[in-house]
C-alpha cells in the first residue's frame, strides 16, 4: 500500500510536471497520459474499481485522443513549438499564484486534524450498487448529464464545423 502510493504519486507528479513543461506538444500529451494513468492507479489503490475503469476509458481513451487530434488539426504535424517563446506573458504571476496556493493548501491540510485519519473500510463498492444508485437516487443528475453531454457533443461539432457551413 505505502510503496504503491509513493510510486503512483511519483508517476502522477512527474507526469503532471512534464505535461506542462515539455516543449513538444505531443510529448506533453503523452506525459499527461502518464499522469492520468497514475491517477487511475490511485483509484485502484483507493478501491474505486469502477472509477479506475472510467478514468482509463474516458481520460486516456477519449480526452487524450481528443487533445491529440486537436494538436494535429492546429499545428504542423511535428507538434514542436519551434524557436518561439513557450511561456506566456507574465508567467511569473501564474507560477507565483500556483506556489502560493500550493503552500496555503498544504498549510491548511497540515493544520486540520481530520486529515490524519486512516481508512475505515476495505471491500470495494459493487458495480451493481453504483448502477442501482444511478437509476434510482441519481436519476435526474444522470439525465441532466445525458442532456449536457448531448449538448456538448452538438456544440463541439457546430463550433468546429463553423467554417464549413459558412463556405457553403
Amino acid at each position, binding site marked *: 500500500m505505502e510503496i504503491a502510493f509513493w510510486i503512483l504519486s511519483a508517476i502522477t507528479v512527474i507526469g503532471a510536471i512534464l505535461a506542462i513543461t515539455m516543449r513538444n506538444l505531443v510529448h506533453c500529451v503523452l506525459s499527461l497520459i502518464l499522469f492520468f494513468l497514475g491517477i487511475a492507479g490511485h483509484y485502484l489503490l483507493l478501491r474505486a474499481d469502477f472509477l479506475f475503469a472510467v478514468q482509463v476509458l474516458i481520460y486516456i481513451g477519449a480526452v487524450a485522443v481528443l487533445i491529440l487530434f486537436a494538436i494535429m488539426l492546429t499545428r504542423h504535424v511535428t507538434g514542436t513549438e519551434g524557436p518561439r517563446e513557450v511561456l506566456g506573458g507574465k508567467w511569473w504571476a501564474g507560477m507565483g499564484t500556483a506556489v502560493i496556493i500550493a503552500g496555503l493548501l498544504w498549510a491548511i*491540510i497540515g493544520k486540520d486534524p481530520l486529515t490524519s485519519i486512516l481508512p475505515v473500510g476495505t471491500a470495494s463498492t459493487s458495480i451493481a450498487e453504483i448502477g442501482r444508485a444511478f437509476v434510482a437516487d441519481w436519476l435526474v443528475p444522470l439525465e441532466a448529464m445525458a442532456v449536457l453531454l448531448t449538448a456538448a457533443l452538438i456544440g*463541439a461539432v457546430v463550433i468546429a464545423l463553423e467554417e464549413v457551413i459558412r463556405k457553403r
Partner: protein
Amino acid sequence: MTVSLAHYLMLSAFLFAIGLCGALSRKNAIIVLMGIEIMFNAGILNFVAFWHYKYFASLTAQMFAIFAISIAAAESAIGLALVIAVYRHYQSIDVDEMRSLKG
C-alpha cells in the same frame, strides 16, 4: 508510515498547483486546457480520497466523481472545439494573441 488522508490531500493539492501553474503560465491554449484537466483530476482524486477514508459506506462521492469526470470530458470537447475554431480564425492557438475582447 501508513498513508493517511493527508497524504492524498497533499498530493492532490500539489497536482492542483501544478495544473494551475500550467494553465496560468503557458502560451499554448491546448496546454492551458491540459492544465485545467490536471486540476480537475486533482479535485476528483480529493473526492475519492475522502470517500475512501471517511465516507466509505456512502456512494455519493463516487457518483460525484463520475459526474465530474463526465463534465470534464464535455468541457474538454467544447474547449478543444473552440481551440480549433480559434485556430481557424487567428491561425494561432497562442492565448496571448487572442485578445480581441480587449477593453
